[in-house]
């Protein structure tokens, strides 16, 4: 955008936000805070006004809060044209417009993409379609799942023990329901926090009466004559009678609608610079397309400039604020989104918080508290510096670790003066090996000047 037209753009321009959840709402508010007075359109595929998701796997499933009562408060008037219940299906960068599922088109001068992620479904569509098989990501999911839990199933099977699966297992035990958790890795939360912490999470589950089975996967789900799930087959040959299954298999980035737009969109998300400006398929930055929230993937200075997706609440809020600012400012005023991400979970009576990127580390050391009491802090290190930390019921110390991470302080950190853990030696954090996605980009053209990237679309 030509600088001298910035004022005109702020007064009369058109901004479209695709994705009407936390990042979309906060982005819209930030645009107005930044003085954008033009036309603002917010497109969301769900019919609901923006709502908060963290309670869906906790208070909502416990029955404390109704699934439709987690709407996000608005911080200010937005004066936007809300297009809810209709998905964006395409982006035409030449004509600068977004195509919608109802056949209409919305033109934009600048675009903010906040389409987030969706729950990965059970991969066998017939089995996924059985009655009693759930995922939880949306408030509609949570409402259905809560009703099914309230009907008191005889046994619940949770496939995958990440944060959502573990929280759900905790809810089941709180409701007095029998629950089996099947996790392919050696322990719950292993992907996020490594097997050392995972072993503690496993103990918490077993102490609470969860039938936790690790190192196994579910090979098939079976339905009864009415089409309701009734049995699960595990990779170790066991069969399990179950009448409610939650597939908590992680998430899939909502990028399919960008097919053909030649942006750096794929399995890991939509690539952007640290200022939330989207890269095209070649890795060249675009001028008018921005991204924030779960779907964004940007290089992070603290973590070797590696591209990180941070599927956390604060990433949505703070990333949207940076994107909004950069959408309506001069080049020299641009800001960077330099988040030290934080994350929280509540399960089995324990408040778990993390800061930084634990999975970037390869070593862990307990730094405060007592593991046996499930009240401790631990730091993660890589190449002799601290990159993350986790606390169990010790969340008040998180800021200390955040400050150490921001300064790239040495790992292990200096010992605490009190409440020192019995064993404070650093050990391998033991993260499960991360799957390497197949390359989905190839280069064509012989002469370097003719090189072009081509996205190879995986079969969908």
């Amino acid at each position, binding site marked *: 955008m030509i600088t001298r037209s910035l004022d005109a753009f702020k007064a009369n321009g058109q901004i479209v936000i695709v994705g009407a959840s936390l990042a979309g709402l906060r982005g819209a508010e930030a645009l107005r805070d930044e003085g954008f007075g033009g036309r603002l359109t917010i497109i969301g595929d769900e019919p609901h006004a923006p709502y908060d998701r963290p309670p869906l796997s906790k208070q909502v499933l416990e029955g404390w809060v109704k699934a439709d009562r987690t709407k996000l408060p608005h911080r200010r008037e937005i004066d936007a044209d809300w297009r809810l219940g209709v998905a964006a299906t395409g982006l035409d960068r030449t004509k600068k417009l977004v195509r919608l599922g109802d056949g209409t088109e919305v033109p934009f001068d600048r675009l903010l993409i906040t389409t987030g992620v969706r729950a990965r479904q059970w991969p066998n569509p017939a089995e996924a379609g059985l009655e009693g098989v759930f995922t939880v990501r949306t408030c509609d999911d949570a409402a259905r799942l809560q009703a099914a839990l309230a009907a008191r199933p005889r046994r619940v099977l949770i496939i995958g023990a990440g944060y959502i699966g573990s929280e759900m297992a905790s809810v089941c035990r709180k409701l007095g329901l029998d629950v089996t958790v099947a996790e392919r890795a050696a322990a719950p939360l292993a992907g996020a926090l490594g097997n050392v912490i995972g072993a503690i999470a496993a103990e918490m589950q077993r102490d609470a009466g969860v039938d936790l089975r690790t190192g196994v996967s579910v090979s098939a789900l079976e339905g009864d004559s009415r089409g309701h799930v009734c049995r699960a087959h595990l990779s170790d040959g066991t069969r399990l009678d179950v009448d409610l299954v939650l597939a908590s298999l992680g998430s899939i980035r909502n990028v399919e609608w960008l097919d053909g737009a030649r942006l750096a969109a794929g399995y890991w998300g939509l690539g952007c610079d640290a200022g939330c400006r989207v890269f095209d398929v070649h890795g060249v930055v675009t001028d008018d397309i921005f991204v924030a929230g779960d779907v964004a993937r940007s290089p992070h200075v603290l973590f070797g400039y590696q591209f990180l997706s941070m599927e956390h609440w604060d990433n949505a809020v703070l990333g949207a604020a940076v994107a909004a600012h950069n959408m309506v400012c001069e080049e020299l005023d641009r800001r960077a989104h330099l988040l030290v991400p934080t994350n929280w979970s509540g399960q089995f009576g324990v408040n778990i918080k993390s800061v930084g990127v634990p999975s970037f580390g390869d070593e862990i050391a307990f*730094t*405060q*508290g*007592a593991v046996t*009491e499930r*009240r401790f802090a631990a730091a993660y290190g890589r190449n002799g510096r601290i990159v993350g930390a986790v606390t169990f019921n010790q969340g*008040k*110390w*998180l*800021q*200390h670790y955040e*400050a150490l991470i921001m300064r790239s302080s040495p790992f292990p950190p*200096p*010992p*605490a*003066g*009190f*409440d020192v853990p019995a064993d404070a030696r650093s050990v391998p954090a033991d993260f499960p090996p991360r799957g390497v996605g197949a390359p989905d980009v190839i280069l064509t053209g012989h002469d370097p000047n003719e090189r072009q990237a081509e996205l190879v679309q995986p079969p969908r």
Partner: protein
Amino acid sequence: MTPEQAFAEAMKFENRPNPYPFFDELRKTPVARTAHGIYVVTGYKEIIALAHDPRVSSDLRNGSLLAMIRGGDSSGAPSDADSGMAEMLDKYGGDTMMILSDPPDHSRMRRQAMRHFGPPHCPDLIPSMEEYSVRIVNDLLDKLKGKHRFDVVDDYAYPLPVAVICKILGVPVEDEKQFHVWIAEFLGGMDLGPEAATEEGKRRQAKGRESRTELTKYLIGLIERAEKKGGEGMIAQLVHDTGPDGRMSSSEILQNCILLLVAGHDSTVNLLAHCVLTLLRNPGSIDKLRKRPELIPRAIEEVLRLESSVQFFPSRSALSDIEIAGTTIPSGAPIFLMYTAGNRDPAQFPDPNTFSLERDAKESLGWGAGVHTCFGGPLARLEVNVGLETFLRRVRNPRLVVDPPPYRPSQIFRGPLHCEIEIDGIEDRGAS
């Protein structure tokens, strides 16, 4: 002015109404070594860092501060010097209160106390105090009908929190006349300023020790009565605790009851009085809040930022050498985190000396920070909200009589001794 001089000035009684220029001076060195090797911290981000640093202890027994404070032990525990207390030492000596302890004891005591105070076990206790508080403040204002002048501290700000904390702890409110004096003298004797070395200062410290002993004896009496007869309130609940952490030791119960009784009203009085004082110093703010009462909670947080009820708490010390802000705090050195100075750090709060209803002061240090963050904060917020809202609604045309008002001696708990106002009258209760 050296940091040492600036700190001494900030602590001087004559500067109690306005210590802020000296804190501004001190903040030029955000972590400064002062007299007796005390490290005084006045920068916001340095206070946040040290409040969350697990190498900083809150246990007075770890630092050299005790030796520095004349009169020795300031934890409130009975000491050998207190005659007639020897027989109590076995049972009531030795342990300390949560604000003067570190994890894991601190974490355990806080859990044990919170079980009887807040969620998840007692989510209704604090909300249940609202109706009681509304009744108290309305009764107080009814008594002032027909008057054209009253003292916001004695006639309004003090009686509310003292009644509420008595009810919560199970302390007979009719004993207030006694322990009011003891607490005032006890706090008055904790002098960390230059006046401590004067004859008058020494007299106040002696008086403070006597009063602390009297208060201790009084609370031991309540604890022993609760042991035998049970009863309502937190004292009885702590004495008969059957929670997963078991029961606090008798001396921990005593120490924490002293803490909750003193901190449970004194700092609240300061905040409510400072609310009235600050609004009267800022013309237009009262009208604005009357029109938009939804801004009252924000106004209270802003007053707490501007006039910290607890300026600092002199408990902390370094357990190892700590590098911060270009200096090294040596192991063992006492550390004073000056919340009151951090709350006016221009790097954190632009235009810090201005009272602004536009400001979102939630990040202020008024409630402390880290694991020792104010235990009673949710209760204090409720009390001050009720107190201020009712004051604004019913007190007609309040005007300050003297500004600044006289202050109480304590440097730690800073608040007006009196705050006289003239009024045009008191409105009826009306439909509330």
